[in-house]
Structures are given as structure tokens and as C-alpha cells.
């Protein structure tokens, strides 16, 4: 019997204690912790992984971020600048040597892990304050950060292709010369032909090293030819317009 009344007493008292606590919270309702988000915006911290952003002018196009990404969402492409061209300095103090013609991030796949930002030496890839905007379609989440206008990109590609052709011609010429010389001095000419391309490659070893994937076809070569206007009737579409990427799966 005592247990019965004790149970009732415990029930009543604990209910009252609970009601007291909730009442205290209710009564001081002026101090609600709610942040009325669209009206008052929470300040984002420096490190907050909110919105990935790349400053094209500061990007060294080293492709470190693209390699660090666990989901391979960074689609970037660069073209080596001409030797005389001045692209300004990178935040690290070194001169910028690459044109960033393509830097696309598919935010629908981004895992916001921060690995890409960590490896960025120039800090051109960084987090920005407002949270990533919501979209009505998946394609809108595909964002491009390259700032070079499309016709300029076309020109650069054309220029690069031309440079390649030139390089190939040069090589061919050299080879032809070597072949011609071969008749006279067979053994010596052979050694020369081998040494020359190696020298050409040694001019820009870093750029050669960082080229991956689709850029592999372009040969890094130091060409002395001046810039030429791009061909307007180039069949290639501008490279940096956001395009819906077909699902890989």
C-alpha cells in the first residue's frame, strides 16, 4: 500500500517538476534562440564550407584540387601561356604561366570535404560565405569559374593547336634535317636527334608533369612564334559554357 501511494506521489511530483522546467522556458519566451534566417543572416566563419569558389586570376592551374577530389567533380583545363605573355603574379609570388580556360564544378556531387581547398597553394580555391543556392534543375548546379570569354578561349585553343602544329613541324624539320645529316654522319646525327626533344621538354617540366587526362595530347613546347588572331570559323564550341554533363553511371 505504501508503495502504491509512493508511486502516485512520485508520478505527481515528477510531473510537477517537469512542468516547472517547461514553464520556465515558456515564460522567458522573449529570449528565443531562433535565428529568423532569411531576415537575419548568420555570420559565416572563415573556414565554413559553404560555397566553393575559384578566383581564375589567381589559379595556377596546377590540377592539385582535381586530383584531391574524392568524387572527381572538378573539371579543369589550362593552356600554357606564351613565353612573352604577362599574366600577372600568383599570390605565392610566382608568375602565372597558364590560362585557365575551363574550371567547372558539379555541385550536385560535391561532398564539401575541403580536400581541394587544402591542397591549393595559391588559395585561389576557397570557401565563400553565402550557402550554396538551391536550384530547380540539376544542370544549374554545374558551375563554371573560368573568366576567359568564349572567343578568347577559341583563340587560345586555336593558338595552342597551331603551336602544336608548329612544334610538330619543327620536330619534323629537325628530323628531316637529321635524316639529311644522317647520310653524312649516321652515328652522330642519331644521338643529336634524341637529345633535342629532351631539351625542349626540359624547359617547362612542371607544366608537363601536371598535365593529366584530356590535356595529355598537348605537348609542352616553348614556341617563339608570336600570337596570332584566332580563327573565327572554328568548329569547336566555346569550352567554358556550362554544359549539362551526361551522367557517368
Amino acid at each position: 500500500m505504501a508503495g502504491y501511494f509512493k508511486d502516485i506521489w512520485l508520478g505527481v511530483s515528477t510531473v510537477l517538476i517537469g512542468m516547472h522546467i517547461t514553464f520556465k522556458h515558456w515564460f522567458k519566451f522573449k529570449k528565443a534562440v531562433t535565428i529568423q534566417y532569411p531576415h537575419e543572416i548568420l555570420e559565416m566563419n572563415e573556414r565554413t564550407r559553404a560555397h566553393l569558389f575559384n578566383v581564375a586570376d589567381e589559379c595556377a592551374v596546377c590540377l592539385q584540387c582535381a586530383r584531391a577530389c574524392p568524387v572527381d567533380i572538378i573539371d579543369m583545363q589550362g593552356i600554357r601561356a606564351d613565353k612573352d605573355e604577362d599574366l600577372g603574379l600568383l599570390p605565392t609570388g610566382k608568375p602565372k604561366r597558364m590560362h585557365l580556360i575551363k574550371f567547372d564544378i558539379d555541385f550536385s556531387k560535391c561532398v564539401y570535404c575541403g580536400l581541394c581547398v587544402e591542397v591549393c597553394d595559391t588559395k585561389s580555391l576557397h570557401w565563400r560565405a553565402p550557402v550554396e543556392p538551391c536550384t530547380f534543375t540539376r544542370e544549374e548546379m554545374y558551375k563554371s569559374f573560368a573568366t576567359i570569354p568564349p572567343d578568347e578561349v577559341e583563340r587560345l585553343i586555336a593558338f595552342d593547336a597551331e603551336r602544336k602544329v608548329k612544334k610538330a613541324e619543327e620536330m619534323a624539320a629537325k628530323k628531316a634535317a637529321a635524316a639529311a645529316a644522317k647520310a653524312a654522319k649516321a652515328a652522330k646525327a642519331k644521338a643529336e636527334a634524341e637529345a633535342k626533344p629532351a631539351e625542349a621538354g626540359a624547359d617547362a617540366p612542371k607544366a608537363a608533369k601536371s598535365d593529366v587526362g584530356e590535356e595529355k595530347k598537348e605537348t609542352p613546347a616553348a614556341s617563339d612564334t608570336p600570337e596570332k588572331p584566332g580563327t573565327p570559323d572554328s568548329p569547336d564550341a566555346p569550352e567554358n559554357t556550362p554544359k549539362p554533363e551526361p551522367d557517368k553511371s
Partner: protein
Amino acid sequence: MSEIREIDIPVGATPQKISQMLENFEDVHGERMVVQMGPQHPATHGVLRVELETDGEMIMKATPHIGYLHRCFEKTCESMTWQQVVAYTDRLDYCSSANNNLGYVLACEKMFGIEVSERVQTIRVLVSELNRLASHFIAIGTYGLDIGAWTPFLYLIQEREHILDLFDRLCGGRLLLNYMRIGGLTHDLPDNWLKEVHEYLSYMEGKLDEVNSLLSYNKIFVERLANVAIISEDMCIKYGLTGPNLRGAGKKWDLRKNEPYCGYETYDFDIPVGDGEVGTIGDCWDRYIVRVKECEQSMRIIKQATERLEKMPGDDVLAAIPKSMTKVAPGEIYFRTEHPKGELGFYIVSNGKKFPWRLKCRAPSFSSLSVMSAVSPGLLIADMVALIGSIDIVLGEVDR
């Protein structure tokens, strides 16, 4: 569909007794009803499906079905570089990502023989204990929600938001931190961060008492949980239950004390165990209260760690991170840590290449879930909800 029949259950009967009782009455029972609980059910903590065979409201058999969140963690990790795997361990038990990170990086460091500085160790302890706090807050809060009390859940989420703010300042992530690296950390502590942790600790003083008087010792809550779904120590060991579930059954087993790692042996804290304060040892309430008490202990560790860090000279947290991990030492390792849900073990095999050759994760929630079908006969549906909440499973970790 069977007719709903009332069965006399003596108050405080153990499940074993009830199932024994039911066996005696087997012949008078009608058809059993099969009820699917989940995958969309507010009480299953995610996408667990439990197939309940019930007689009226009494459960005769419960079969958990998993795999609704199978994300191929182990297989994916075989194609990720050593450092990239950290981002995937975040998503194992998403409530306590720092603890997952810790288990993985410690295993890798041990395998590759990387020594990290004491400061890095202390920061790791601090962050993972903060995350343990956040994880336990969710566990306690959602448990209240399962039992029908909304308010404690919202209060605890509110306290948890402060921890998330600290994390946000620390590494930019709120929920999935991805903060630890093999050999170090991603960022050093921001300015004034330790002061904020101190402020948070003083803010939290008395908050757990409030939760205790609002929820833990509420008569209705106690009645709902005491003597329900008792998992004895013996059973825990048989089914591989670890962490708060094992401690709730009265076993003083905590890897932070028994197999110290990361310098835990130098911290002063206790291991709370279930003592059957309101019912039998190993009932739902014991498992629940162990979590509440662990929060207090975590706060003690956080306090000590913060004080140590304030005295410690700053060093480069990135110093010991290997510059390149394309070629590593081959080897294999099994390393376990004390995760908020139990023992989190990583078995990693390296063949010296860029990627782990094999990565196996011993997930505590998975083992905890296995006990469900053994204890559930004789429970009511409401008790089933209490059981699922008390073993505190996270489906991300169960299915991986």
C-alpha cells in the same frame, strides 16, 4: 488477422518469463499478425525495417531487415587514397564523425608508424569528446522523442548547436567534420577557440540536471523503461554489444581505460555503469542513463584537455602529415577505439600502394542491432520502440 486478445502480464515480468508464459498458452492463440515497422517509421532512427509478428500488441518475433542504406563504404574506400578515406569515414556514423575519423587515422598511423605530437593528440581527444557529447545528445533526445517527450529533444539539439558552432569555427563542417588527417589535422585551432570551449562548458553546467529532472527521472519515463528489454552482461558479450550498451549491463569496460589510445590514460574520468537504479540491471533505462552520465564524463575530459592545450606551446599540426602517400609500407592492422556507440574497429590491409587494399569496419551499431530479435519476444510495440532507441543504432553504420 487475428483477434486482439488481452494477456495478463505480471508487472515487472522479464521477457524470458513472458515468452515462457506465452509458450504455455500457445494453443489458445489465434493467427499472428505481421506488421512491418519501417523503413519509413518515425521510431526506427533511419531506414531500418523490422518485421514484427504480433499477437495483438505483443511481439512474438521481430526480425530486423537491413540494407536500405547500404552505401558500399568498404568497397568505395578501396578506390580512395589514404587521406580521402577520412571523408568517407565521416559518413559511417554521421552523428559522431570525429570519432570515426579518429579510429581510422589512429589505425593508419599505427600501421605506417607515424608519430604525432602531443598537442595534436590532445586536440583530437578534445574534438572527439565534443563529438561524443553531440552524439549522445542526439541519442538521448531522440530517445525522449521515441517515448513521446518532444521537449527534451529540442533542448538537447539546442545545446548541440553550440558544439556544431565550435566545429564550424574549427574546421568548417557542422556535422561531417573531416577534420583529422593521417599524421595530423587539417587546421590548427582558431583564435579564442579554447576560450569558447570553456564558455560552453560553463554554459552546460546544470543543463544535464535539467534533462535529468525533465526526462530521466520522470515517473512516466522511468515506468516506460524500467525492466523493459533487459540485456544481461552475458548476452551483451555473446552478441558483441559494446559501449554504453555493455556498460548499461553493468560491465565496466571502456577502451579508453582498458586499452588506452591517444593519451586517454592521462585523463581523469570514470566509467559509468548501469546499476539497476530503478529496475533491473541492463534494462532500457540503464542503457539510457549510462549515456547521460557519459556526457558528464566527456565534459570532464574536455575540461582537462582544454586546460592542457592552453598551457601547451603551439606547434604545426600539419607537420607529421606525410607529403605523399602514393607509396606506403605494406601491412595490416586491426585497431579499435571507443566510439559513442561502442567499439569501432578498423581492419586495414595495405599492399604498399596508393589505396587501401582492403578496409573492413567493425561497426558497433551492427552488433547492437543483432540482439534485437533475441530480446524482443514478449515486448509490446511501445517497448519495441524503447528497445530500438535504447541500443542507439545509426543506420549509416549498420549498413555502411
